[in-house]
């Protein structure tokens, strides 16, 4: 599905995109990805669903060893890689101990 004009990604979505883009060729498990980016399943899966619906993420079923149920695997599509590459660096958080200096 072609990427339509979307609202800016949430910080959590940016984290997921960056994590997937860090090793874009590899397929990732959902639970593992959630632990990696520090998101619970309640936040992670809606993000994955949205990314997939926007054509930024592809999913496939693992052909695992017999006896164990196959798992779902995820990685970025080429459009997803472009999207991740175009993400602007997050603005650094303001430092608490930063005092306003004299105006020169």
């Amino acid at each position, binding site marked *: 599905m072609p990427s339509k004009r979307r609202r800016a990604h949430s910080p959590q979505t940016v984290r997921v995109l960056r994590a997937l883009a860090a090793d874009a060729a590899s397929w990732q*498990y*959902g*639970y593992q990805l959630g632990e990696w980016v520090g998101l*619970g*399943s*309640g*936040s*992670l*899966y*809606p993000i*994955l*669903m949205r990314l997939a619906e926007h054509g930024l993420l592809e*999913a496939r079923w693992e052909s695992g060893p017999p006896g*164990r*149920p*196959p*798992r*779902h695997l995820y990685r970025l599509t080429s459009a997803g890689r472009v999207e991740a590459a175009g993400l602007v660096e997050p603005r650094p958080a303001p430092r608490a101990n930063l005092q306003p200096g004299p105006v020169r």
Partner: protein
Amino acid sequence: MMGLGPIGVVLFMLVAAVGLQRLVSRPRALGHDAARTLLVVGVRSLPPARADWGRAMLAELDHIEGRWARLGFALGCVRAATARPPLLALAAAATSMALGVLVGVQLAGPDLGAGSRIWQVATVVAFALFACGALVLAMDSGPHRGATRRLGVACGVTVGALFYVHPLLELLHPGGGASGTNPIWRHATR
């Protein structure tokens, strides 16, 4: 317990002991099943277009170790599967709150006295809230409409059933005053 008689008491204790022993001897299995059962029920509310995501969540759960990790994962997935747009979430919240008030008034009715005006008003407001919430849910046309409409219809059926449960309660507790505090039921069962 006195009404059971000595044989009944022994039988009751025997059944309770066996049940307790099974619970204690298989705590992991109990936790394991709880997470899976929760998730199986939760993913049913996903729309058909997202059914594959439900299967993905269930498959992922099978690879997670630890009862609490599994339960946390299942709870999060249920939250993701049942998340609704703000209007529907508001309708669901209003409906469940109204149901709570209706049941609370029904249970507390005999203690509140038949002439308690505030509880009569609360019942009417809760009933109106319930009906509106159930209607909004039942008329959903979004991607989750299958499950949401079922929930709305179930809410409507529940409140309808309450009308018919009330006369039974009245029969069990004649003169208890429950109908006096519930004008809706009072009129419905007249």
